[in-house]
């Protein structure tokens, strides 16, 4: 038990410890050269993505949950679609679309007879471009959480505010928004953590942040210690976001999900208001999903003959196998921890279990550093002992193996499975166990006949989410991949790095298609939230359990 927790928490502890290790020249060098740029870019990124996802996510959530306009039903789930689009994929796609030789500029030149000197195209490969790209795919976090907050609170409190003399708009500013604030901040925190984690898009756009810095210091400068130092400073930003979220949440940590649902009367929009609402909701769906997905489909059509071959299917298979094993492993660890916590009365232990979920906030690159350093040390020890005792050095045992990669996935995505399974388990009351026992079922029978069927939806949902997240994961996979392992995400990255954006499309499209699965799951959970029992399996995830 303690061993499992230790393994899960070790990578984070290792990185944090580097905050206090003296590194001498190396650190002075970093601090005087790249660090100010990393900090500035990271702060701009946080500010930009924060503002855009806030406006887009909250605005859209307010429109679809409290207003009535044409297409509202469609938008309420379509607004989740950009979830399926990994940031690096959308970055590559828009690079291809907006290139000098891409369809947009070519089209404009043809249409107006311009030449390349007649106009100044905004450069998407910039910090601003990165902010827009990330916001387009990350706003659904804010949308999802604020929407469920609006739906939960609105029934009673909005009506009360109306009886107290508020107009619909006043009710929004004075009641709905303040009540939804914890959820909105939780959504923003998730979006910002994802933004900090992003590697592919940042590298492609040449925007230096901590994540790309860790890669450079580690791989180009060959200094894992420097990477760890950088990672430890990076973690300060992560914990700052977590702390802000915690503080904003205050005591409003739990929403009662079992309140009775009643559809809201809704504010009917007409004329220019309705048109504005449609445009507001359609913009992120179009640019965050429809346009890039369409482009990917078109490019896949163009490049399929060349790219989609036996090798492509082999790496698809590798990806699926890797993601499936990670999902099984992570769910198993979460089940183990959740049951141990259920059986244990120790408050300390429960706290530690919750701490283990912090891995979700830790960027993949940081995690990779935290895993490689102790495993390398372990390998060295084993080799030294082996050489001394038996005259053999077994070489790499943990590092550079599947073990390291799976460990990284498990640590990073533990929060998803832990949240879902813990949420599922709390719905199984102690009295249900007791009732089953008195009805002649053994302790094992209770697990089999009560827990298994009741947990199945939570386990399936968690497994699916982790499966898709692993499929998309890039930075940790890139740093920890065992020799010879190739995945869809890695292939996409490699093509994009070579500026072969059209060739990158088939693997990217495969990832996007897989990413639609959890979107379907989420939208179903959202629709079913009128039935607390049915929705409860997925609700912890939809409600942002990772934090």
């Amino acid at each position, binding site marked *: 038990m303690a061993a499992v927790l230790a393994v899960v928490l070790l990578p984070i502890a290792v990185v944090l410890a580097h905050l206090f290790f003296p590194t001498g020249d190396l650190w002075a060098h970093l601090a005087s050269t790249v660090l100010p740029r990393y900090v500035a870019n990271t702060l701009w990124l946080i500010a930009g993505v924060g503002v855009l996802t806030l406006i887009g996510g909250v605005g859209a959530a307010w429109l679809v949950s409290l207003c009535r306009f044409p297409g509202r039903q469609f938008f309420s789930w379509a607004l989740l679609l950009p979830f399926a689009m990994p940031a690096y994929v959308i970055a590559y796609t828009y690079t291809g679309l907006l290139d000098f030789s891409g369809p947009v500029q070519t089209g404009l030149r043809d249409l107006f007879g311009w030449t390349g000197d007649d106009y100044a195209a905004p450069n998407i490969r910039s910090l601003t471009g990165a902010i827009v790209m990330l916001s387009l795919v990350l706003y659904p976090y804010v949308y999802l959480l604020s929407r469920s907050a609006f739906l939960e609170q609105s029934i009673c409190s909005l009506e009360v505010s109306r009886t107290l003399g508020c107009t619909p708009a006043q009710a929004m500013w004075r009641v709905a928004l303040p009540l939804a604030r914890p959820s909105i901040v939780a959504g923003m925190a998730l979006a910002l953590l994802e933004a900090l984690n992003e590697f592919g898009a940042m590298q492609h756009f040449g925007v230096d942040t901590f994540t790309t810095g860790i890669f450079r210091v580690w791989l180009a400068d060959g200094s894992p210690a420097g990477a760890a130092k950088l990672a430890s400073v990076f973690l300060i930003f992560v914990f700052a976001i977590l702390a802000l979220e915690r503080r904003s949440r205050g005591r409003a940590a739990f929403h009662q999900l079992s309140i009775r649902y009643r559809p809201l009367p809704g504010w009917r929009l007409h004329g220019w208001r309705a048109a504005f609402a449609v445009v507001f909701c359609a913009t992120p769906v179009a640019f965050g999903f429809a346009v890039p997905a369409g482009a990917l489909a078109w490019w896949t059509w163009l490049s399929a003959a060349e790219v989609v071959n036996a090798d492509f299917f082999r790496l698809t298979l590798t990806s699926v196998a890797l993601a499936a094993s990670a999902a099984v492993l992570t769910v198993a660890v979460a089940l183990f921890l959740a049951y141990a916590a259920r059986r244990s009365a120790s408050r300390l232990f429960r706290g530690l279990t919750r701490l283990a979920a912090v891995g979700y906030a830790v960027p993949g690159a940081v995690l990779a550093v935290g895993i490689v350093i102790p495993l390398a040390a372990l390998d060295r020890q084993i080799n030294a002992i082996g050489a001394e005792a038996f005259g053999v050095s077994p070489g790499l045992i943990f590092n550079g193996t599947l073990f390291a990669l799976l460990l990284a996935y498990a640590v990073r995505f533990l929060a998803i499975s832990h949240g879902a399974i813990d949420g599922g388990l709390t*719905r199984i*009351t102690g*009295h*249900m166990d*007791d*009732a*089953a*026992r*008195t*009805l*002649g*079922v*053994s*302790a094992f*029978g209770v697990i089999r*006949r*009560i827990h298994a*069927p*009741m947990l199945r939806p939570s386990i399936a949902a968690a497994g699916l989410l982790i499966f898709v997240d692993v499929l998309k994961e890039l930075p940790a996979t890139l740093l920890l991949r065992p020799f010879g392992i190739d995945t869809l995400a890695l292939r996409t990255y490699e093509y994009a790095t070579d500026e072969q954006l059209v060739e990158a499309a088939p693997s990217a499209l495969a990832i996007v298609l897989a990413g639609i699965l959890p979107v379907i799951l989420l939208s179903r959970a959202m629709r079913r939230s009128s*039935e*607390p*029992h049915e929705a409860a399996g997925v609700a912890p995830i939809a409600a942002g359990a990772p934090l």
Partner: protein
Amino acid sequence: MTAAPPGPDLSIESLTHRFDRVTALEEISLDIGEGQILALLGPSGCGKSTLLRLVAGLETIQHGRIVIGGKPVGAASGPNLPPERRNVGFLFQDYALFPHLSAADNVAFGLRHLGDAERRKRVGEVLERVGVSGLAGAYPHTLSGGQQQRIALARALAPSPGVLLLDEPLSGLDARLRHGLADTLFAILRETATTAVVVTHDPEEAMYVADRIGVMRDGRLMQFGPPASVYDRPASPFVTNFMSDSNRLTGIVGESGTIDTGWGMVDAGTLPPGKSAHVLVRYQGVGIGFDFADSGTVRARVLRSRPIGANTLVALEAADRPGETLYARTPAHSAPWEGDCVAVTLDPAHVFVFPSANAK
């Protein structure tokens, strides 16, 4: 109800139980005969639910012994059967229905030993008996509290348990549903001659349903006996007050073997002269009249007179001792007006005298 039971069906022998350092049960011993209903009565936290869980085997026994149907099922040293082998039924306060199973499947849960046809028949029977056969296919979250309660009862009864344990079975329901369900519940228990233990904090409920009442407080069994004896001969001020709201007076036993309570003289019973005593007077034992001629009456002013259903609760203040109040419960038709001056008498049938040392 009066038939002599053929030997104890459930016996609890010097059960002591601790959680960390808190004593939940202290040397509890009692037994009840086959088909009898025992009500464990007491305020929350008195240990009555712990006792129930120990009988079911849901808590591990620490000290003492539990025998069901002549067979020891739990002992601190010796056999300690797991709950599934004790043949007990348990009705939980929150029903604890399995949300992933329909009502019929919930009821069938404990009937795995039966064949399909037999099981279906039994489920149908039991659902019919508790009056919810129309709900067989329904899922728990679609049912009302009362319906869930009946399904839970059917589930607990289906395997014909040797002892049925009920934890506050009626407390989750509103008053209107309570009596209907209580009658169904106890009619079934009688018909099937099922031995049952009911945990409750409501003395009326306990007296309505039980053959034996055990009054508990702070983990101790304060009194154990038939309802009438517990009500009519309470062993302590606590039991007196718990069974029925009472005024608590004090006084010293005089030479003549009576106590002057300030609200009239009461018989000291066996207490010797000079002993200080607690005198408990039930609200309904305070008589209110307008005949001041009788020497036994005490003059009082009516502070409040509020109808509470069929009765009226009256707060009285002694005419010569302002600030000292006495409560009376009288039929609504004979209630005085607020501000009235009345003559108070104490009904000896509702007066209980205890020595002060036993003040608890």
